[in-house]
């Protein structure tokens, strides 16, 4: 940084010579006074201001200073003075160019401004002299009566201004009639100073460089701009476009530290008033949703400490005017972060099969029943959501039933203690399994969320598979198999009877603990004794032990030996050659189906399609029964 700094005096070296030439050209006597030549500023900035400075000196010499005779008449020293003064002030370099000339002729500027259409007569009446003085920076306005070789063409100060503004500086003029004018150029010490928008998300403040901000939109439920969602993706209708949105709190993964709530993007309704910072990175436009927008501030970008350099969403940090430290967001990093979300979602839809249970996303129906804590069931198992009149609930044979679509549907409670509603409407989750339908009574259906299902804690209760984190909250996963058994205890007895006395032995091969927990009770309910293993190797080890199975149900996508290879292996060896194998897969691709048949699978069903799996199993049982 220090090596970039140079004294401003090196940019002033040529000025005395220029002034001397001007003296000859204009027949004026001018003295140039330079103060603060040792003021340092960024070399790059200095290059940018060299030409504007020269122009302003010329301008002062030509327009500002009067001719010696006029000066004598006004009682001034015939030698005019142009003073250059440079100094540091609050992170900026200030350069003042002052002359002791006649000052700006405000009347003439006013007339010129009106005649050239820069301002209407009516508006002109409301402007102060100081505001008119600044009109000299507008294009096409010159107050010199005649065009000289030096100046008066009306292009000049507007170029000066645009050059200074290009490097984030400002230029201003103050004038006193008869005493002279002072041009003040305020430029940043270094180009590392940027203008930034200070915003707040989840109680923390961040700065967004203004240069990448297109606009700010206030979004609330009752205004024209409302945040809408397509599945989890949040969007904003902005004129003729749909703008993808990200919550800053989510990108930065901040917990709301005041309330302890997770910044919950899933509930835009609860947020009344939000601001969308429309940001552009390259050609990618997106909106960053923040809670509050403060002000813009000029900030000096300071690099973050090495320990924090790995965080892509920050480009630096800075100290604000109030002394607090603030992190500067890098719009590129944020765009990448939302790009990643997008990519992940694409991956999910393209190859859900490749995912293991740790990253597999499943749609879960989250509900509340018998307690404030959320419970969930995989959505694909639920046939319908219904609401029935409590008066329609009847009791028969010690069970709650309702008449539903011409059938009697048993109602199951989520737990023994759970009380059905006495009046009003009772929400139900309806499950249809083969010919039977049952309803689970719940208090409230909260949401449908897509999340990875990883059972973190196993449950001691028979009706729950365990507890998983769904949507950031600990959620109990209900075991539908348990409730099915509860609703139709007789069904299994009957079907077992029809199958004959021999209990059949099934082997379930699946790497996902979730599916093992899910499917084992289901297969058991179809009348099998179930053995579960995690992978093909364990399955083959059982074969080596001499264990005999009546049916093998195997996942296709498994780490190590996959389902196809397992089936091939089984078909090669005499021991298990005749055992029917049912493939279960979360991937319904037709090629897989064909391939499954080729390698020797008896049937191929979707993992979540319990009805097909049961049908397939009963067919196999039937076939086995025939064979026996």
């Amino acid at each position, binding site marked *: 940084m220090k090596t970039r700094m140079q004294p401003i005096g090196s940019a002033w070296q040529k000025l005395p010579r220029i002034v001397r030439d001007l003296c000859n050209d204009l027949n004026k006597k001018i003295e140039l006074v330079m103060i603060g030549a040792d003021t340092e500023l960024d070399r790059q900035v200095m290059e940018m201001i060299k030409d504007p400075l020269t122009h302003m000196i010329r301008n002062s010499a030509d327009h500002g200073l009067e001719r010696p005779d006029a000066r004598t008449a006004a009682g001034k020293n015939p030698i005019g003075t142009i003073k250059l003064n440079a100094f540091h002030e609050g992170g900026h370099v200030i350069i003042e160019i002052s002359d002791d000339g006649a000052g700006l002729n405000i009347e003439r500027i006013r007339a010129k401004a009106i005649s050239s259409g820069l301002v209407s007569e009516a508006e002109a009446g409301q402007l102060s002299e100081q505001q008119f003085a600044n009109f000299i920076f507008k294009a096409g306005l010159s107050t010199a009566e005649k065009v000289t070789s030096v100046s008066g063409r009306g292009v000049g100060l507007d170029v000066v201004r645009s050059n200074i503004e290009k490097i984030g500086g400002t230029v201003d003029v103050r004038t006193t009639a008869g005493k002279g004018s002072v041009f003040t150029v305020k430029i940043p010490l270094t180009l590392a100073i940027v203008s930034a928008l200070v915003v707040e998300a989840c109680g*923390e*403040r961040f700065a967004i460089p203004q240069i990448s901000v297109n606009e700010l939109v206030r979004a609330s439920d009752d205004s024209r701009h409302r945040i809408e969602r397509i599945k989890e993706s949040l969007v904003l209708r902005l004129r003729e476009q749909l703008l993808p949105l990200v919550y800053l709190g989510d990108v*930065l*993964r*901040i917990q709301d*530290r005041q309330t302890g709530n997770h910044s919950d993007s899933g509930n835009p309704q609860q947020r009344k008033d939000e601001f969308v910072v429309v940001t552009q990175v390259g050609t990618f436009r997106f909106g960053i949703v923040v809670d509050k927008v403060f002000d813009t501030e000029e900030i000096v970008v*300071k690099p*973050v*400490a*090495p*320990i*924090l*350099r*790995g*965080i892509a*969403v*920050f480009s630096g*940090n*800075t*100290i604000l005017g109030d*002394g*607090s*430290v*603030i*992190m500067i967001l890098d719009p590129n990093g944020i765009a990448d972060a939302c790009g990643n979300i997008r990519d992940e979602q694409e991956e999910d839809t393209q190859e859900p099969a490749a995912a293991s249970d740790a990253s597999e996303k499943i749609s879960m129906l989250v509900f509340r029943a018998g307690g404030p804590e959320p419970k969930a069931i995989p959505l694909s198992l639920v046939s319908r959501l219904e609401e029935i009149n409590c008066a329609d609930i009847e009791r028969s044979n010690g069970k709650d039933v309702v008449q539903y679509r011409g059938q009697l549907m048993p109602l199951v409670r989520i737990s023994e203690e759970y009380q059905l509603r006495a009046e009003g409407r009772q929400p139900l989750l309806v499950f249809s399994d083969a010919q039977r339908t049952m309803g689970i009574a719940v208090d409230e259906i909260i949401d449908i969320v897509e999340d990875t299902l990883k059972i973190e804690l196993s449950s001691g209760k028979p009706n729950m598979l365990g507890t998983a984190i769904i949507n950031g909250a600990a959620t109990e996963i209900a075991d539908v198999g348990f409730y099915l058994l509860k609703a139709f205890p007789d069904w299994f007895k009957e079907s077992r009877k029809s199958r004959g006395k021999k209990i059949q032995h099934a082997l379930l091969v699946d790497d996902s603990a979730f599916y093992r927990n899910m499917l084992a009770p289901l297969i058991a309910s179809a009348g099998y004794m179930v053995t579960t293993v995690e992978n093909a190797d364990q399955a083959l080890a059982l074969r080596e032990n001499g264990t005999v199975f009546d049916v093998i149900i195997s996942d296709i996508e498994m780490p190590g030996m996959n389902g196809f290879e397992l089936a091939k292996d089984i078909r090669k060896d005499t021991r298990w050659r005749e055992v029917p194998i049912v493939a279960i897969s979360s991937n319904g691709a037709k090629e897989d189906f064909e391939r499954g048949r080729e390698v020797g699978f008896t049937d191929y069903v979707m993992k979540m399609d319990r009805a097909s799996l049961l049908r397939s199993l009963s067919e196999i049982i039937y076939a086995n029964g025939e064979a026996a």
Partner: protein
Amino acid sequence: MSASTSARPENENATTLAPAVRRTADYVTMVVAGQLFGIPVLEVHDVFSPSKLAFVPMAPLEVEGVLNLRGRIVTAIDLRLRFGYPARAADAKKMAVVIEHHGEPYSLLIDAVGEVLSLDEALCERNPVNLDPRWRDISEGVYRLDNELLVVLALHKIIKTSNGAMAA
């Protein structure tokens, strides 16, 4: 004390002890979760009571935030979290000791600052073999004080390992 750096000539005290040259080292002592630590006094740039910390999302766990110390941005590292202690209560008193690492200022957040001790290097011992591996890295040695033990912090390692990969 071969591992430690601070055999400083000005601390040599040859006149009072005739037979052997006794070397001493000065340490700023501090307390983190009841454990006494020491930092060579010359490493310490500042000791102050931190007030306004700006939170840095997605930062390593032990980075408590960044703060403004007389116009410099200082990264605050909570030694409690760095050493694997539970976080301190929100209202608990804390102090900050500013050190420099590769020209960057870091402030170590601790529970309390003690006095400066001038210790005989002969009292310093190597890390006990059963020391927690996490601690073995950040300790340069242990001083046997009269009623407690003082762990000499290896400052460069505190910053280095908390960065995962070495930064500079």
